[in-house]
């Protein structure tokens, strides 16, 4: 038998052992028959020293109690089953909660993504070269950069829309202008110009009906294209 262990047992018997050591020793004491026998003898020694008339040292209470309790269920066993069920649900509930948070986060990020892309892309795609290089010029102050930043994305997004009216509306106006001033131009040059305007107009019409509608505004037809 380990002397240190016995010394701890003696201190534990007197309630003079640290709690952490008591935990370990109590576990061993409940299982180790030899240690338990020594524990019992310590109790007998204590009782013998405190000897009083009529008190027997060879009491059989412990054996009898152990025999009676042997047929009873151990404490905590029935109460453990619902605890186990709860414990089984805890990780599942935790995982479900984590999955929910992850899904919400993904949806939120996806919802945020186009705005982020629009803010990030202007310097690469839509911003004119002069403005893209503006922060590098000496004349640009931080104040002007800060002032431009919020308005940038609004004016440079969706390039095709800006380009289609630019192709159609000037072509119509130019065609009207050429027809109105046909007397000042040669017939061959006028025909070439008109055919090129018509080609560009039909290309613009093929890209979307909205732009055709917007380009052929009614008052202008009544004035110039009726001819």
């Amino acid at each position, binding site marked *: 038998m380990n002397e240190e262990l016995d010394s701890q047992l003696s201190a534990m018997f007197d309630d003079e052992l640290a709690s952490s050591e008591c935990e370990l020793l109590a576990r061993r004491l409940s299982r180790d028959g030899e240690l338990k026998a020594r524990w019992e003898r310590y*109790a007998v020694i204590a009782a013998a020293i405190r000897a009083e008339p009529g008190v027997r*040292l060879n009491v059989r*209470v*412990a054996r009898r109690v152990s025999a009676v309790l042997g047929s009873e269920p151990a404490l905590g066993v029935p109460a453990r089953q619902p605890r186990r069920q709860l414990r089984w649900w805890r990780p599942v509930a935790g995982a479900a909660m984590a999955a929910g948070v992850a899904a919400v986060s993904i949806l939120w990020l996806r919802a945020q993504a186009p705005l982020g892309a629009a803010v990030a892309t202007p310097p690469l795609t839509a911003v004119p070269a002069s403005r893209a290089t503006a922060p590098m010029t000496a004349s640009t102050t931080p104040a002007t950069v800060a002032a431009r930043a919020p308005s940038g994305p609004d004016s440079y997004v969706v390039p095709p829309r800006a380009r289609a009216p630019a192709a159609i509306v000037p072509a119509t106006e130019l065609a009207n202008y050429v027809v109105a001033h046909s007397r000042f131009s040669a017939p061959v040059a006028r025909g070439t110009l008109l055919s090129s305007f018509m080609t560009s107009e039909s290309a613009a019409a093929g890209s979307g009906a909205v732009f055709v509608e917007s380009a052929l505004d009614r008052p202008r037809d009544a004035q110039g294209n009726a001819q």
Partner: protein
Amino acid sequence: MGADASDLSLVRRVQRGDKGAFDALVLKYQHKLVKLVMRYVRNPAEAEDIAQEAFIKAYRALPQFRGDSAFYTWLYRIAINTAKNAVVSRDRSPIEYNIDRNSDESYDMQGRMKDAETPEGLVLTEEIRSIVNTAIDALPEDLRTAIVLRELEGLSYEEIAAAMDCPVGTVRSRIFRAREAIDRRLREVFEGGLGRAEELG
């Protein structure tokens, strides 16, 4: 180092389903409890029965024990109530009414009738006492003083250290060595624990 830490660690183990830990608590307190119950009943066998009942009640009530008081204080209350109930129940018994309860002689007769103590058992008790006393007398002065202050006077290690003017660690060592010396003598007589005592008792 908390007061009642050792009992509490055993109690927690019992509450988690470790019956072996309850055995340790019973082994530790069975003598004290029998001695306590002997204030209410005169014969040792009846005192043992009541102590046994008190331990079983304590075991069954242990899930409700929260550790607000020391385990022995809690056990003490259970034992006192069990002893009082046993006395009341015995006094109400029709058989007992045939005996003059106020007569010490009748009590002694009851005691003798119920007492399962055999002559061998009585001899054994005296033998254990004799061995322990002889072993204590043979101890060096410092070990003897330490164990007597602890077991007879009930002083804590700190109080003994103050009384003996030595560190607490020394007190712990002295008490352990005193116990080991007494235990060696006991083991020489009772090989294999106190099994022989059970047989004789």
